[in-house]
């Protein structure tokens, strides 16, 4: 299965600023997703990152707040824009392959 490198692993940010999270995969993958998770709780899908086109966002998530790039089949970024304390969470990227889904280790974001 694919190996994912996600950076940064954690960050503490001031409200009103933006943070870009990177997800690098060691092989080409078609399906790549971004999730949000409160510690110890379930995962909520933010969007599907589409290579060469705009990401597909789930209900409650918008491009202006969570812009996503997918320049090729091995890399994607998620930006959390104009952050507020409510954005404090764990953000994870995931890739889907024939043998299942693999997740990055997550980015723990704290907004102060």
């Amino acid at each position, binding site marked *: 299965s694919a190996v994912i490198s996600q950076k940064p692993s954690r960050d503490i940010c001031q409200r009103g600023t933006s943070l870009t999270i990177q997800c690098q995969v060691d092989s080409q993958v078609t399906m790549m997703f971004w999730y949000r998770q409160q510690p110890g709780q*379930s*995962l909520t*899908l933010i969007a*599907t990152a589409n290579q060469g086109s705009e990401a597909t966002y789930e209900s409650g998530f918008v491009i202006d707040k969570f812009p996503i790039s997918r320049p090729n089949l091995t890399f994607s970024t998620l930006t959390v824009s104009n952050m507020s304390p409510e954005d404090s969470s764990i953000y*994870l990227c995931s890739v889907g392959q024939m043998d*299942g*889904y693999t*997740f990055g280790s*997550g980015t723990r974001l704290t907004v102060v």
Partner: protein
Amino acid sequence: TQLLEQSPQFLSIQEGENLTVYCNSSSVFSSLQWYRQEPGEGPVLLVTVVTGGEVKKLKRLTFQFGDARKDSSLHITAAQPGDTGLYLCAGGLGNTGKLIFGQGTTLQVKP
């Protein structure tokens, strides 16, 4: 909106006990996956079941997919402290590749 109800949300047991975690939905899923997650890490896939009535075993873990592909269970036999973690079920949404996650079950196995 498709929902996956997972229960129980918390479970604290002694080493050697058995346990079962359930995931239920009113929706049909193309597949049902089970993950285990430890603090500071992403979820790790344990198993995928795709056929109604399918049963898969992974050492002391037994996974079952309901006949109608709306529910699933995870049974752990003789739990060990190393089984401690967050267990998540996730339903697959056909060709979209998307997953709907249950609320998660935090399992603590005490020595």
